[in-house]
């Protein structure tokens, strides 16, 4: 592990206390770090805890949920300890965020221009005029050729791809050091997805941002990320570089995911489906959380959950599985 860390999450647990006394352990002991300028992908099927991890970093967890334990070091401070007021200076300024459905994040009653100007005035202490000029510049950067007119438009007047670009303009407006993108292109068609991912990549290089890219699409990860973390049952089960993950995957879940994916490059008769379904966060199996679906399950797997350990001499391949202990 080399280089300095921009974000370091350790022992993060975020639980939801359900009505029937059950506890949904949405995030249950997650450790990872992100270096400046790096793109790290967090992948997993729905319900694995990706969004709750990112919302925890932004401290946007509401009742009945709670950050139960752990630290989130960002810029030398533990975000877990910050007050709500202190957090508003981090959110949108040092950490930008893009969501899957931009309509939930854009305010429908304000123009696109107003929303960028507002962010710039609040976080960058710009005057209204400075903010306006900067907003036009930002819209041009994210690919609105008629930026002056786009400033006056409302979110509903834009297509899905344009809204996502407007979201990116807002997210990068204050030169964040970290951009969290939660399924930024899942709702978009492939040709528009390619536009948006290329734009994010360009912005990342231009402003030297780090990106936490949350997605369930392994193709997107292979093309845009430097490192990848695979999440299952509220925990990271494998973490490594893109090359190692796609060339020498180790965790049975990762291997299963890769085999279940139809691809344009290779032709297979049958897809290697993983049996069963993702367990809900309030009812994980005892022992390894993948044990009831794992083709390699051994008797000890059903007794205790394995811990995540380093398996690579270069210290860049962590796996949570007894096969590698």
């Amino acid at each position, binding site marked *: 592990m080399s280089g300095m860390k921009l974000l370091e999450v350790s022992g993060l647990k975020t639980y939801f206390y359900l009505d029937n006394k059950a506890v949904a352990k949405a995030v249950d002991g997650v450790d990872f770090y992100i270096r400046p300028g790096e793109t790290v992908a967090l992948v997993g*099927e729905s319900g694995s805890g990706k969004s709750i991890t990112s919302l925890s970093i932004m401290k946007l967890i509401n009742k009945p949920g709670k950050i139960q334990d752990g630290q989130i070091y960002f810029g030398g401070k533990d975000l877990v300890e910050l007050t709500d007021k202190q957090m508003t200076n981090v959110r949108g300024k040092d950490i930008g965020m893009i969501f899957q459905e931009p309509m939930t994040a854009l305010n429908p009653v304000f123009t696109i221009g107003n929303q960028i100007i507002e962010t710039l005035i609040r976080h960058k202490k710009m005057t209204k005029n400075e903010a306006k000029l900067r907003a036009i510049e930002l819209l041009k950067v994210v690919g609105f050729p008629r930026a002056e007119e786009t400033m006056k438009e409302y979110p509903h007047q834009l297509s899905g791809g344009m809204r996502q670009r407007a979201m990116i303009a807002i997210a990068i407006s204050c030169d964040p050091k970290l951009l969290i993108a939660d399924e930024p292109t899942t709702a978009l068609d492939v040709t528009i997805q390619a536009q948006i991912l290329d734009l994010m990549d360009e912005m990342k290089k231009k402003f030297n941002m780090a990106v936490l890219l949350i997605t*369930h699409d392994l193709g997107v990860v*292979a*093309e845009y990320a430097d490192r990848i973390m695979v999440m299952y049952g509220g925990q990271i089960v494998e973490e490594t570089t893109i090359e190692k993950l796609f060339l020498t995957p180790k965790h049975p879940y990762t291997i299963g*995911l890769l085999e*279940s994916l*139809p691809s*344009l*490059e290779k032709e297979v008769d*049958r897809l290697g489906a993983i049996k069963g379904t993702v367990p809900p966060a309030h009812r994980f199996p005892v022992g390894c959380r993948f044990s009831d679906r794992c083709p390699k399950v051994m008797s000890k797997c059903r007794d205790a959950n394995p811990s995540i350990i380093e398996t690579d001499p270069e210290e860049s391949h962590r796996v949570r599985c007894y096969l590698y202990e």
Partner: protein
Amino acid sequence: MSVIEKETRIHTDQDYILQANNIKKYFPIKGGILKHTIGHVKAVDDVSLSVLRGETLGIVGESGSGKSTLGRVLLRLMDPTAGQIVFEDQDITKMKYRKLRPIRRDMQIVFQDPFASLNPKMSVSELIEEPLIVQTSLTKAERKEKTVSLLEKVGLRSEDRFKYPHEFSGGQRQRISIARALTLNPKFVICDEPVSALDVSIQAQVLNLMADLQDEFNLTYLFIAHDLSVVKHISDRVAVMYLGRIAEIAPKKNLYDTPLHPYTQALLSAVPSTDILHKKEKIILKGDLPSPSDPPSGCAFRTRCPMVHDKCSEVRPELTEVGSGHLVACHLYTNK
């Protein structure tokens, strides 16, 4: 010679289960105080295609390109604005309900969102038995036997028939929709994004199941999806739609190995690949899909096409055969 005639000529020995000729579906746009029709959404705009018995014909295209509308029109769940639909040598375009009813047994549809298409108040056995009660004279015991056997075929247990849709996961609900679609032993099934809402591990289970059922029951599929890898996996031939029209249609291998239409080329290049050793060059298209209520003149793709030239805004390119079973609608290939 029309496209269909050409195709028929090439595959004279071919057995078509369904043929669609020059299908249009326009939705009126109402406006003003008097709610006059002020324009039309041209959801499907002159589509001709034929489906071979036993094959899987994939339909891909971006959101709003008219895939679902085409599927609904082909099954007469909606009436076309123009065109002709021939199912097993019978013209069903204007067929009345009574006459259509027995034919309906042979054509079924599976939707993307099984939650919206399964009545939440009905148990699994009621859902599966309903078509049997309406369409057959099976006894109660025979219906039960059929239900249990179908559930087992789609990988559910016979006890599951007492449960309700909300008690199942997304993948299991899709299995129920598939069982329901198969109750009347259909010949032709339209699958409208049947796996799009599912996680990849579950998507693979359902795709494998659909392939098994196709073999076992000799089904013909029209498989609609926007995921090009999924369509490649399941289809024999693939049609690419853009703004209500077919841009290209070809046997799977030709379409994926040598795409001809600039839109197909861009679409394929944009699919993110997990093959990290062979990075491909992306064609990034500018702009969004134009509105189907006001499609560009000439070629519908010309506003985003990297190869656009003068003729493209003037003349609409017709779908033309350029290789065996490989048809494309683009002036680059029809000029010669």
